[in-house]
């Protein structure tokens, strides 16, 4: 509870301006707090009269902080492939481990995945905890949760990182709850605080309109999920050495209450462009249907989907479900790359709330440049192939 010492309060209003939630305001001659208070403490820090303090029931000390050491990464495997985000986690994991002066490990559950342990070590893992069992071929929430929980309890890492993938966002909150650990989702930035080695987790809230930095002062491990393509992947170093530790998966642990009856993989045309984070869109400037091959290539490179302006759809170059705009769909992806699209208002209204808009158009006066975050004036048939090539180079 926020306690306001009315005798000390001078109604100066500094608390009101420092509150991000509109929870405290000056009413008459004193500050008054309402139910929106999240006890973040910003007003307490800023009050010049020190008239504010937060009183809470004593938090249970939940962890012997000193007993937890090391950074652990959940390396996901699906359909026989290690998810690319795992390498991104090893990249940031290595940085955090080096800053803390501790080891970096990876947990790799799967059905026949031993061969990948070497890749994880090359990407920075000092130890790979390998859990192999046929049941792990499919993602069974309960079995994965049990194995992760067990490894974490045994190894006591101070930090656990996972990808904010469908699998990660499903199983990690379950595991965090089981471990009484704090979890921050979709972190865009991770760092270690020099003073006390605490993990600082930064993430967006309110649909991305606000950023928040979060810490877990009293619980261990400090857990965080990270969205794919946010962190840079680790560059593999085949000379790195590491150890592989096999985790036993006894039969009773491998029993799942959940039956996986079927697995369906989307074909590209079924992708809902409104659900995708990256869109590459083609317009009249493509001059032909063939131009969409290039658009598809760039989209694939970025892990995104293909969209189009009305002109392209009307010309029959791509089907209507891909159309963005007034008479098509409204999208708000993280990244929207408009190639050969003029950006007339009928198209703009369908995509202007994208976080980042990149425009590639040979007409420097095209209205798309008025709403683009980044603009390249040039022939898309020159720009896009080069862009694809650069992106491929970086991946390596």
């Amino acid at each position, binding site marked *: *509870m926020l306690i306001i010492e009315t005798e000390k309060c001078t109604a100066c209003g500094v608390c009101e*301006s420092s*509150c*991000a*939630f509109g929870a405290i305001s000056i009413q008459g001659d004193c500050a008054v707090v309402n*139910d*929106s208070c999240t*006890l*973040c403490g*910003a007003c307490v820090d800023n009050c010049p009269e020190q008239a504010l303090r*937060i009183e*809470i*029931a*004593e*938090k249970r000390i939940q962890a012997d902080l000193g007993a937890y050491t090391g950074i652990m990464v959940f390396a996901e495997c*699906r359909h026989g492939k290690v998810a690319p985000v795992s390498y991104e986690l090893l990249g940031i994991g290595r940085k955090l481990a080096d800053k803390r002066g501790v080891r970096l490990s990876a947990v790799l559950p799967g059905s026949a995945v031993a061969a990948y342990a070497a890749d994880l070590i090359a990407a920075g893992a000092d130890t790979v905890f390998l859990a192999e069992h046929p049941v792990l071929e499919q993602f069974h*929430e309960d079995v994965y*949760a049990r194995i992760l929980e067990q490894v974490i309890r045994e190894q006591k890492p101070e930090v656990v990182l996972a990808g904010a993938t*469908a*699998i990660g966002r499903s199983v990690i*909150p*379950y595991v*965090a*709850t089981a471990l*009484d*650990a704090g*979890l*921050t*989702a*979709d972190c865009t930035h991770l760092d270690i605080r020099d003073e006390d080695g605490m993990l600082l987790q930064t993430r967006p*809230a*309110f649909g*991305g*309109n*606000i*950023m*928040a*930095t*979060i*810490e877990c002062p009293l619980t261990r491990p400090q857990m965080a999920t990270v969205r794919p393509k946010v962190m840079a992947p680790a560059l593999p170093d085949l000379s790195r050495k590491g150890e592989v530790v096999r985790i036993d998966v006894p039969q009773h642990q491998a029993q799942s209450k*959940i*039956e*996986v*009856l*079927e*697995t*369906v*993989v989307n074909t590209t045309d079924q992708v809902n462009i409104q659900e995708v984070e990256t869109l590459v869109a083609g317009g009249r400037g493509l001059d032909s249907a063939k131009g969409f091959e290039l658009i598809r290539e760039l989209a694939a490179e970025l892990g995104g989907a293909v969209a189009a302006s009305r002109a392209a759809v009307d010309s029959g170059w791509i089907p209507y479900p891909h159309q963005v705009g007034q008479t098509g769909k409204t999208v708000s992806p993280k990244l929207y790359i408009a190639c050969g699209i003029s950006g007339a208002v009928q198209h703009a209204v369908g995509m202007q709330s994208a976080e*980042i808009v*990149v425009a590639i158009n040979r007409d420097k006066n095209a209205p798309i*440049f008025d709403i683009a*975050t*980044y*603009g*390249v*004036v040039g022939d898309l048939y*020159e*720009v896009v192939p*080069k862009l694809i090539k*650069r992106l491929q180079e970086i991946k390596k």
Partner: protein
Amino acid sequence: MKIIVCVKQVPDAKDVRLDPKTNTLAREGVEAIMNPYDRHALEEAVAIKEQQGGTVTVLTMGPPQAEAVLREAIACGADEGVLISDRAFAGADTWATSYTLAKAVQTLGNFDLILCGKQAIDGDTAQVGPGLACRLQVPFATCVQKTRTISAEAIEVERMMDDGFDVLRLPLPALMTVVKDINEPRVASLKGKMKAKKADILIYSAADIGADPQCIGLAGSPTQVVRVFSPEPRGDRQIFSGSVDEQVDQLVACLRAHL
């Protein structure tokens, strides 16, 4: 069939902005709404009830004004609403929230199915659903885009994956979180609205659900907000110049910094 739906009252996220000068959330004219994903969860619950028979109970943890979303839920087909409200819940993160909801569910008694929206549009964490499943020790599935079949013993659903979906069979009782594709929520009927107006909302305090004060609210929250700030404004428009190679290099550098 006894179905519970967890809903949250949230500010309409797209309207919330941080005023950079005062570092305050600009909340003028921001409406409080039922979290859109929860609306879909409610619709699915009501559809299952209409098919299988039973009751739909809607639960929310929030301040007194959150009662409005419970009434909205009743207008859309829920049978009863329960408000879990107490000053001690303030400042709860997802761990403390799932604890509180679990205690309330246990107070309500046996259930067959719990439905939640995939995530709340203010926190965006998608953590409470799985956390609640953990506390209640029930099988769960997240991001369900379709219910294929349901019987008294089990439910078959399509659970989204990054590249498609899996079809799962979960024995009941179970928990699932849903995405918007799962259904088209109905418009609340006149009869429903009248029923909602007259409905008695059950209110649970922390004591009513037997909550441990160290597990709720800020006291029970392992995570803590250190700082809140505005994201980098993307107003800086850059039109690159130079050769195509140079422009592409600059573009890639900017994208890497941002993404």
